[in-house]
């Protein structure tokens, strides 16, 4: 049973560029959440997708956008990159309607903005 997968593993971009990160959820999961984890900090919620719609959003600017595909995989797009966007970007998948709401994380994409 494949867990949550993310690509690419590492990415280096320069300020002002745009980036797309990808996530495939755990088999059978239909909800994908994205988190940003700065060095030495806990993950911060960016947004969650279910049924190809953004269901919830954290306190992140519109430069952060996403998409979910019919096969439940998801993309995170960040425009006009800033130095402060350098972080580990984590994708987590879950069932939204189960009472336990467990989330399983992928290994993350480490983004460095120069």
């Amino acid at each position: 049973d494949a867990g949550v997968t993310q690509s690419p593993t590492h990415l280096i971009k320069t300020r002002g560029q745009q980036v797309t990160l990808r996530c495939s959820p755990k088999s059978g999961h239909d909800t994908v959440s994205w988190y940003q984890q700065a060095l030495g900090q806990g993950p911060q919620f960016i947004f969650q997708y279910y049924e190809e719609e953004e269901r919830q959003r954290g306190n992140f600017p519109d430069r952060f956008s996403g998409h979910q595909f019919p096969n439940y995989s998801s993309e995170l797009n960040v425009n006009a990159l800033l130095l402060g966007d350098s972080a580990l970007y984590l994708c987590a998948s879950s069932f939204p309607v189960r009472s336990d709401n467990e989330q399983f994380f992928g290994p993350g994409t480490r983004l460095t903005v120069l």
Partner: protein
Amino acid sequence: QKEVEQDPGPLSVPEGAIVSLNCTYSNSAFQYFMWYRQYSRKGPELLMYTYSSGNKEDGRFTAQVDKSSKYISLFIRDSQPSDSATYLCACLGNYGQNFVFGPGTRLSVLP
């Protein structure tokens, strides 16, 4: 005040020690409480999951939740060097709300 707080450590203990990790939270709407373990440069791995108040045990790990004091604990018995990692607590409200994580506590178990 942050919604979920943890002592960032680092916490260093000798192999075989009992480790106590703690979080406090401020939002009384939180109903679900999780502990994640995160190795360096890896994604968080779910360790324990608890609904509402009470204890839950899984092998060497015990999670406790006291909703009256908004206090969450994780105990690790017979700690091993392989337990060296950052431990994140996370809280979740009812259906439709997002996870809120603490900043994590870095643990080192010395052989």
